[in-house]
C-alpha cells in the first residue's frame, strides 16, 4: 500500500503543476531560468523566516509566529522578484526568443509564481513523500489515515495559489492596485493560518475554505490576466 500511496500523493500534488510545466514552461529556456530563479528567491525567503524562527528560541514551539513572518517574507520576496523582473525586462526582451514573454507581462508573473509554488510545495511535501515509501506508517499510533492524502491535496492548493497570487500581485503592482496587493497578502496569511487547524484534524474545514479561496483567487487571476467570462466560454468551446 505504501508505494501506490506514494505515487498517488505525488500525482495529486505535482501532477497538475507538472503538466503546467511541461506545456507552458519546458519549451522556453528563458522561462525555465526564471522558474528556477523564482524558486531560488522562495528559498531565500524561507531561509530568512527559518533563521528568524530559529533565532527566537522561546517562540519555537509557537508555529503561528513562524508562519506569520514566513508569509510576510514570502510576499516581500515576491515583490523583490517583481522589481527584478521588471527592471530586467529590456534585457529579457533581447534574450527571449519568444517575444511573448515580454509582450504579455502575465507570462513572467505566471512563471515566477509557478516557481514559487513548485518549490514551496516540494519543500512541504517531499520529506513526507519519502516517508510514504518506507515501512508502512499510515495511521499508526492512533493517527489519521488520510494524513498523507490531505497533505498532498493541500500542497496542490498551495502550488496553484502561489501561481495565482503572483499573477494578481504583478498586475496589481503594475497598476498600483493596492487592494489587490493586500488581497494577495491577506489571503496568503489566511490560508497559511487556516492550515494551523490541520493539527486538530479539522480537514474538512481547512480544505473546503482553502479550495474556495484557491478557486476564487484563480478567477481573480484569470480576470487580472485579461480574461473574461466570454473569453473563457470561447476557450472552452475551442473557438
Amino acid at each position, binding site marked *: 500500500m505504501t508505494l501506490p500511496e506514494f505515487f498517488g500523493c505525488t500525482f495529486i500534488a505535482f501532477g497538475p503543476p507538472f503538466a503546467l510545466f511541461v506545456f507552458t514552461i519546458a519549451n522556453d*529556456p*528563458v522561462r*525555465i*531560468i526564471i522558474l*528556477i*530563479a523564482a*524558486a*531560488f528567491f522562495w*528559498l531565500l525567503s*524561507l*531561509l530568512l*523566516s*527559518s*533563521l528568524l*524562527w*530559529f533565532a527566537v528560541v522561546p517562540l*519555537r514551539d509557537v*508555529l503561528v509566529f*513562524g*508562519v506569520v513572518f*514566513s*508569509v510576510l517574507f*514570502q510576499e516581500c520576496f515576491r515583490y523583490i522578484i517583481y522589481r527584478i523582473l521588471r527592471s530586467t525586462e529590456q*534585457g529579457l526582451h*533581447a*534574450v*527571449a*526568443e519568444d517575444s511573448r514573454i515580454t509582450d504579455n507581462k502575465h507570462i513572467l508573473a505566471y512563471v515566477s509564481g509557478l516557481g514559487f509554488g513548485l*518549490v*514551496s510545495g*516540494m*519543500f*512541504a*511535501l*517531499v*520529506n*513526507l*513523500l*519519502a516517508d510514504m515509501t518506507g515501512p508502512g506508517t499510515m495511521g499508526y499510533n492512533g493517527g489519521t489515515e488520510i*494524513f498523507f492524502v*490531505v*497533505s498532498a491535496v*493541500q*500542497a496542490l492548493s*498551495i502550488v496553484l495559489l502561489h501561481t495565482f497570487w503572483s499573477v494578481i500581485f504583478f498586475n496589481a503592482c503594475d497598476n498600483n492596485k493596492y487592494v489587490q496587493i493586500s488581497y494577495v497578502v491577506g489571503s496568503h496569511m489566511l*490560508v*497559511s493560518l487556516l*492550515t*494551523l487547524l*490541520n*493539527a486538530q484534524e479539522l480537514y474538512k474545514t481547512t480544505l473546503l475554505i482553502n479550495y474556495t479561496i484557491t478557486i476564487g483567487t484563480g478567477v481573480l487571476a484569470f480576470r487580472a490576466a485579461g480574461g473574461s467570462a466570454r473569453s473563457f466560454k470561447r476557450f472552452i468551446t475551442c473557438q
Partner: protein
Amino acid sequence: MDAHVNATSSSGGAGIADGLSGAASRLERRPKQQQPRSNYGSNNVDQADGAILAVPNVVIRPSGSGSGGGGRPRLSGGGAGGPPDAQAEEEQGLKYGAQHVIKLFVPVSLCMLVVVTTINSISFYNSTDVYLLYTPFHELSPEPSVKFWNALANSLILMSVVVVMTILLIVLYKKRCYRVIHGWLILSSFMLLFIFTYLYLEELLRAYNIPMDYPTALFIMWNFGVAGMMAIHWQAPLRLQQGYLIFVAALMALVFIKYLPEWTAWAVLAAISIWDLIAVLSPRGPLRILVETAQERNEQIFPALIYSSTVIYTYMGTHYTPQQSQPTGISSPSSSNSTTTTRATQNSLASPEVAPAGNNSRASSSRSGNTRSTLTQDTQASAAEGMPLVTFKTHLRGNAEAAGFTEEWSANLNERIARRQIEVQASNSGNSRRSNEYRTVTTPHEGAQQEGQEERGIKLGLGDFIFYSVLVGKASSYGDWTTTIACFVAILIGLCLTLLLLAIWRKALPALPISITFGLIFCFATSAVVKPFMENLSAKQVFI
C-alpha cells in the same frame, strides 16, 4: 551566453586581423584550434600540422572577421557587416545563451539524479569504511576540533596532489608529450569504465538482490566498457558520448562520496572551488596557461575531459566527408585527425571549394555534426551559440591519476575542475570564425555551416559535473530531501550567474566557485535551520 560568444567572435575577429594578442584574440584563436581538433588522437607531428594549418585559417579569417559574429552565420547571409553586427550579434548570442544554459542544466541535473538515486538506493556508497591513500586522517575521533584538523590536513594533501598533477599535465602539454597525456587519459577512463563500473554493477545487483553469473556480468561489462572507450576517445553518436561522459562523472562523484571522510569531502569542495578560482583567474594560473597554450596551438582540449552539447571530435567528420577526409578518418583517430587537417589545408590552397575544407576538418566535423544535429536540433542551436567551458586539460591530468588510484582521480578531478574554466568566448569566437569562413568560402556546403554551428555548442568540464554531484549527493546522503533540493536549486542558480558573468566579462571563468559557494551555504543552512522548521510545519500539516 550567446552574446558572449558573438561579442567574442567579433572582437576575436578584429583581434586576429589586428594581430593583437589580447585575451579575446586568444580565445578566438581556439576556434582555429578546433579545426585541428584531432588533437586528441594526434601525435606531436599532427599538432604541429595543426599549428601550421592554423595559419591558413588565420589568413582566411580576415574576411571572416569582417563578417563579425560567429553566432550570426546562421541567421545572416555572408554579407553581414562588422560594427553594426556587433550589437545584433550580442542580442542573438544572448538568445542562444538561454538555450545554452538549459543545455547545461539538463546534463548537470541528470548527473546529479544518477548520484542521488544511487546514494539513496545503494547503501554501499553511503558509508565510508575504506579510505583513499590521499586522506591519511580518517576522522574517527568524536572531537569536532580533531575532525576539523583532519579534514583540513586531508584536503590540503588532496589539493597539493591536484596542484602537482595539474602542473605535471601542463608541463607535459607544454613539452608536447601528447602520447603521454593521451595514455594517461585513456588509462584513467579505462579504469573508470571497467573497474569502477564493475564495482557499481556489483553493488547495484547486491542492493536489489539480483543474482547474476560471471559470464553475463563480463559480457555486459565488456560491451559497456568498450563502447564507452570508443565513445569517449574515438567516435560515437553525440547522445551516446554525452551519456557516457555523464555516467563517468557520476561514477567519479560516487567514488568521492564513498571514499572521502565526511568533513574532508566538504573541505575538499571548498578548497577545490578556491583552487579553481586561482588556477583560472590568476595570471600564471596553470589552467589559464593550459588554455592559452591550447589556443596558441589552435588545439582542442582533450574530449575525454569535457562534456559538449555538440560534437567534439574532428575526425567525426570523416564519416561524412568521403572525398577529402575519408582516408584520414579511416586511419587511427590521431593520425586521421592530423591528416584531415592537413588535407583540408591543402584543399584550401588548391581550390576555393576546398578552402572550406581548409576548414575541411571543420567541415567534416560539421558534417558529422550535421547528422548529429539532425538527431538533435537543440544541440545545433546550442552549438551556434557556442559557449564552451574548458575542462579538457584538467581532465587529462585527472584521467592519468585515475588510472593510478581513486585518490589520484580525485586530484585529477580537481585539476579538471580548474581546467573546466569556461572558455565559451573562445569557442564561440572560433565557431563564428568558422561559420564566417564557411559562408565566405563554401556557401554550397550547407552542411559545413551547420557543422560550424554545432561546434559552437556549450562545453563544461567533467570536473564541474563531478563536484556539483558530490555536493548534491553528499547533501542527500543525510536523508533530507529539502536539503537536496535546496542544493540543486542553488547550484543551478550559481551556474546561471557564472554564465551571466561570462557574458559580461567575456573571459574564461571557473565554473565551480559561485555554484559551490551557493551550494555549501544552502546545504548547511537548510540542514541546520530550515529542516527543523519545515519538519515542524509538515508534522503539523501547516503550509506556508
